[in-house]
């Protein structure tokens, strides 16, 4: 099937305005009759729930945390991009659009990305009005910093806690609406299934994580804002509970999953130290503003860094990409780090690390300025590694960080299942094959504050469907399916906790479908995944019962979904016979080892349709048409 993204016609800069003018409206008195379910309360979910409630819709919001404020958006460190051009350095909506589409290696929709750049300026206004304490200059106006993949300074930040402050802003807007009775909040509640009635998404099945009760919820539309699937790799910078369950189960109910192979490996994370590790910690990309990345020129040089003289160091990013230097985009910086480590020049235990060195910055700016800019990150690094980055260079290595793939949505952020909207990291739409730094926060808030609230009304006004009764057979069947799933997990009578299988899966994926992939490695992974899955269903042990708090059961369900989803990820990577952005196929590279796109055959979105257990999913295609930019080879040299 050829998918239609429903991109409006007209000049690029007028598409969104024209489209908004043509969207059907719901009158204010009728809005209260519509009930919207929002799953997930990160930046996208919280901003959408608050804004929909402000408009007068009845909203039910769900999160598995004890409070909506804990969603993983909170951990974003560096900042949020916006085309304000406050620095007078030539920034514009066009430049932000172009940087983003180029950064994504021309695998995203032009119209979506342009709209994202347009509304970026409104996001900053909105957040400041909510009281988000962005960094400021002495004159009282907003400050900016630079980020990877851009030659202008357009990133707004709140120390190293930008995600936290933006989320607290959206959370406070949500709190106001909860207090006003416009949002009914369901914390500690996990979505376990999507209910589809006559082809439209009309409800969800949830488990109350305190009592274990399974509940049916009916609505006029369902919004998924449940984040990315990076934890399929077990070790990632994601929070330990982040999972694919909501989007994967929606996929199993008919929503298409787009570009799952587009996963982002972030270059600056603290290297893996041992088997016991439960997650990896990111060191913000903003560090690359002042830190210089290097390895010894000589293979196996085991001298401590301070004993390696300047001329024996290889500042490889500055050497390979002189015009962007240490601020090369994430996929490129990560692969460069992998390459020097593969050459045997990596540092630290196992040779899997490169230095991120601040000694020049400390000399140039003084230790106090460096402490003011990065103090909290340096403290975090010291606590984890027991090394002082003010004295010795940090050791960093790439780690899984973000997933550009997600459920397929059209220009209105609606999936192929009418009534199912997907926003934030959970959808696939705006970052193509690689996301630029400080763009995730921008996209989450753009979707939630400024796009979905308009487009969802159009669906209501045009579809004119009544809200189903939660006692309808579709809901009863979904509930029974959920209960059977739980029983099946509790009945596995093996010995091992589920993390054992999750870790094994993660290692398999990292080795075979990580920073670089090949047909052979992917075929190997596709052979091995079903074996791990089969052992999981025989040898795992899920203690406790269906009632009450049972974290073993919660995890088991998520790991079971990862064990299926991993196959889809590898299949997509196998079928995309080109290299682009974060998807690097060894067979497709230029002579100097850069990603080699195949625009003739792969300038499209791949969207997968579920066909049943043990059936090969169907690959649909949405062609990407570039009317306003030329498809160029990315060069950061």
């Amino acid at each position, binding site marked *: 099937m050829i998918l239609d993204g429903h991109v409006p016609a007209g000049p690029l800069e007028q598409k969104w305005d024209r489209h908004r003018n043509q969207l059907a409206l719901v009158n204010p008195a009728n809005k209260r009759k519509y009930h919207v379910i929002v799953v997930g309360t990160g930046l996208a979910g919280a901003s959408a729930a608050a*804004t929909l409630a*402000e408009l007068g819709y009845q909203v039910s919001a769900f999160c598995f*945390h*004890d*409070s909506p*404020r*804990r*969603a*993983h958006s909170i*951990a974003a460190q560096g900042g949020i991009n916006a085309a*304000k051009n*406050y620095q007078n350095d030539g920034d514009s909506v066009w430049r932000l659009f172009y940087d983003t589409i180029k950064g994504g290696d021309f695998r995203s929709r032009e119209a979506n990305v342009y709209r994202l750049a347009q509304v970026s300026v*409104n996001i900053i*206004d*909105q957040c400041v*009005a*909510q*009281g988000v304490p962005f*960094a*400021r200059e002495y*004159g*009282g*106006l907003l400050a900016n910093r630079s980020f990877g993949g851009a030659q202008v300074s357009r990133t707004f930040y709140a120390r190293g*806690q930008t*995600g*936290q*402050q933006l989320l*607290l802003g959206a*959370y*406070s*807007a949500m*709190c*106001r609406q*909860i*207090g006003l009775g416009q949002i009914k909040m369901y*914390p500690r509640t996990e979505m376990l299934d999507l209910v589809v009635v006559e082809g439209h998404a009309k409800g969800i099945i949830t488990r109350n994580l*305190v009592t274990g009760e399974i509940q049916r919820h009916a609505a006029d539309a369902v919004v998924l804002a449940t984040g990315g699937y990076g934890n399929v790799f077990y070790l990632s910078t994601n*929070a*330990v*509970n982040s999972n694919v369950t909501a989007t994967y189960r929606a996929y199993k109910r008919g929503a298409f999953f787009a570009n799952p192979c587009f996963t982002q490996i972030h270059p600056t994370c603290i290297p893996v130290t*041992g088997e*016991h590790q*439960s997650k990896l*910690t990111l060191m913000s990309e903003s560090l690359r503003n002042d830190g210089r990345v290097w390895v010894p020129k000589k293979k196996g040089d085991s001298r401590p860094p301070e004993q390696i003289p300047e001329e024996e160091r290889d500042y490889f990013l500055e050497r390979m990409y002189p015009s962007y230097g240490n601020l090369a985009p994430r996929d490129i910086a990560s692969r460069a780090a992998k390459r020097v480590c593969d050459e045997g020049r990596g540092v630290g235990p196992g040779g899997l690390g490169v230095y991120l060195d601040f000694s020049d910055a400390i000399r140039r700016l003084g230790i106090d300025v460096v402490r003011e800019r990065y103090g909290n990150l340096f*403290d*975090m690094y010291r*606590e*984890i590694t*027991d090394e002082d980055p003010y004295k010795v260079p940090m050791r960093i290595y790439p780690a899984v960080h973000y997933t550009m793939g997600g459920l397929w949505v059209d220009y209105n952020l609606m999936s192929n299942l009418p009534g199912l909207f997907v926003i934030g990291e959970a959808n696939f739409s705006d970052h193509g094959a690689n996301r630029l730094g400080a763009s995730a926060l921008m996209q989450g808030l753009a979707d939630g*504050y400024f796009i979905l609230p308009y487009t969802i009304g159009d669906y209501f006004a045009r579809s004119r469907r009544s809200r189903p009764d939660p006692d309808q057979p579709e809901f009863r069947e979904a509930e029974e399916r959920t209960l059977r799933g739980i029983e099946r997990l509790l009945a596995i009578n093996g*010995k091992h*906790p589920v*993390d054992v299988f999750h870790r094994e899966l993660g290692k398999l994926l990292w080795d075979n479908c990580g920073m670089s992939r090949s047909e052979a490695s992917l075929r190997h992974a596709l052979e091995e995944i079903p074996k791990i899955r089969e052992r999981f269903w025989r040898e795992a*042990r899920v*203690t*406790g019962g269906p009632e*009450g*708090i*049972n*974290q073993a059961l919660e995890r088991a369900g998520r790991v079971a979904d990862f064990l299926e989803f991993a196959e889809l990820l590898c299949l997509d990577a196998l079928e995309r016979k080109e290299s682009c952005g974060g998807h690097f196929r060894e067979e497709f590279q230029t002579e100097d080892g850069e990603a080699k796109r195949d625009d003739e055959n792969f300038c499209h979105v791949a969207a997968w349709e579920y066909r049943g257990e043990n059936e090969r999913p169907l690959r649909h295609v949405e062609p990407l048409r570039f009317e306003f930019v030329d498809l160029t080879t990315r060069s950061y040299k």
Partner: protein
Amino acid sequence: MRLTLRIWRQKDANSPGGFVTYVKDHVVPDMSFLEMLDALNREIVERGEEPVAFESDCREGICGSCSLVINGIPHGPGRGKASCQLYMRHFRDGDTITVEPFRAKPFPVLRDLIVDRSAFDRIMQAGGFISVNTGGAPEANTIPVPKQDQEMAMDAAACIGCGACVAACKNASAMLFVAAKVSHLGLLPQGQPERYRRVRNMVAQMDQEGFGGCTNTFECEAVCPKQISVRFIARLNRDYFRATLLEP
């Protein structure tokens, strides 16, 4: 390292709880405290028993989920850290470590080391916001904020809502938490229109939830993972006093 762990186990909110002793071998200094508990839980599951329930998510000290009292101190030894940022290198071979949930009447235990902190959300719902709808905001730079005010607001806004302040306080006072939010918004020009209404409503909800008052012991600041200063409590008191004068 080999450690002896005394861990609070409690089936649910209505059952009595008690300490259970576990011996944990093969602990390495590079493990975080929570990774040590993960390892213990794996051993417990291998034995067919139910693992120790505890909360955590980001594991980098920002989400505020983790909430352990370690050797009597909320978030354990060391300043300015959440439980998830504590590493085993701070312990010695042979140590006995006591692990309990946050204890305060407004934070009932739900299971083992998990407590219900929804009272904090209800305090936020009572007034922890600036009433501005999406779309109506003026251009961001039309509201200049002096850098020192923004920095101080950010010091307060850094609160992660973990509740350690309450757990450390002999009165189970939530005043550091409330003070942080009231100060964050009250220091900024955007927060002025609702400044006094906000403090009144948040304090009223705080009292209704059963949190105690502050008697200046400052245990809260000592355990706060973000080292939020008790000076904000003085600011809270001042704003509250003014609010009552303005509208008795």
